[in-house]
């Protein structure tokens, strides 16, 4: 549970999809002109990320990973389908988005009007596929993957809504002509990213087991650490 809270906070503020990884920039810049549309797209991103990342986690852990197919038969222990991860992930995302669009259109026209028009945009939003592609590198449990997905979605929502609010205010500013639109938006995003970088200095509410171990090791074996450091330094010098 403590671990989940850590991941949640980390994925909203510290590893923010926009300000740390620049994922989903295209739609981020394109729809942040008005606060209302930005909020609509942000909600859609939370929803789609929150569902496709767990789906992709299942696909990765029960189909693609090396030895993932052992639940069918023990003979498949050495099968590694990771090459196919791009096609599988994007197919799941595209199919899910298409499906949701059709379901929402059929059963809830009001929701469709507020959210549905953004759904096709989301199929090619980098943050959705990016969230899925982080899974193999991070080795999450299922619950962790869900938390990570929701946190990333909320982080994206926060980023897009705050940028839209600033851009609405910017309408009254006298910006140099060639800088208008995209140019000034990038500078705003840069300044906002500085703001979000300060979250990196926060200590997470709960220490992870790794950190606890690291601290114990530090206190017990400072001498060893020093020798390790000197080895690292010499390696770095050598490679230079």
């Amino acid at each position, binding site marked *: 549970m403590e671990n989940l809270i850590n991941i949640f906070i980390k994925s909203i503020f510290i590893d923010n999809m926009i*300000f*740390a*990884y*620049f*994922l*989903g*920039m*295209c739609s981020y*810049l*394109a729809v942040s002109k008005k606060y209302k549309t930005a909020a609509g797209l942000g909600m859609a991103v939370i929803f789609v990320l929150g569902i496709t990342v767990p789906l992709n986690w299942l696909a990765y852990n029960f189909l693609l990973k090396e030895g993932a197919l052992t639940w069918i038969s023990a003979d498949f222990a050495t099968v590694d389908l990771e*090459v*196919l*991860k*791009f*096609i599988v*992930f*994007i*197919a799941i995302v*595209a*199919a899910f988005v*298409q499906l949701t669009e059709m379901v929402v259109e059929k059963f809830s026209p009001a929701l469709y009007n507020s959210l549905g028009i953004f759904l*096709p945009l989301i*199929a*090619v*939003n*980098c943050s*959705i*596929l*990016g969230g899925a*592609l*982080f899974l193999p*590198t991070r080795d999450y449990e299922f619950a962790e993957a869900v938390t990570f997905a929701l946190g990333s979605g909320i982080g994206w929502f926060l980023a897009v809504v705050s940028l839209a609010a600033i851009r609405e205010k910017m309408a009254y500013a006298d910006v*140099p*002509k*060639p*800088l*208008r*639109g*995209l*140019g*000034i*938006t*990038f*500078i705003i*995003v*840069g*300044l906002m*990213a*500085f703001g979000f*970088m300060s979250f990196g200095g926060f200590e997470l509410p709960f220490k992870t087991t790794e950190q606890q171990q690291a601290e114990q090791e530090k206190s017990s074996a400072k001498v060893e650490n020093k020798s390790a450091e000197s080895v690292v330094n010499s390696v770095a010098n050598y490679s230079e």
Partner: protein
Amino acid sequence: MSTETIEKANDQIAEVKKPSEPLFSKKRRQLLSNPLDEDNPITIQVLGICSALAVTVALKPTFVMAVAVTAVLVLANVVISALRNTIPNRIRIIVQLVVVASLVAIVDQVLKAYSYDIWKELSVFIGLIITNCIVMGRLEAFALGNKPWDAFLDGLGNSFGYAWIILAIAFFRELFGSGKLFGFQVMPDGYIGNGVMMSPAGACLLLGVLIWIVRSRSGYVED
């Protein structure tokens, strides 16, 4: 009856004899040159920003990224353009995604085999070429309605337009951020790297300024 068939045959001959467009006509040269400046995918069309900012910490990975995007964009453009009359309109997005995803999987495997370090450094951003808006945008806007050779030139032009912008950003970021170019020290020894340039925020500011310069040269103004 017989005269009709003869006329038809004549028509067909006339059609065949109609001179085809030269391989590098003016229109086709513009397909190559426009995306470099006045129709640039990054500074004017605002596409493919994610990777433009994320991979540009140093020149080496940026160069690899530019080559990867060029390969995927050109091949995808040609493939989709060759298939354009057989793709049903309703499922075209999925077809495009599958074509692009297969090409990206190939590029990913090639990079993993031949330059493992850079492959590790680029990590998810190789996979994210699939959702790079430049690729989808060109497929939607150009390849679906044009012949393969035109699509080839368009793909080449757009990927060069993308490449020079990200290389320019990477040049400044690596030069001021770590005092190196392509990994070689160029700044004097005592130079202390500028941390802002290495951070994501610095990349945003730099791209903003670059867009300012490009747009004030080309005279493009957004509403």
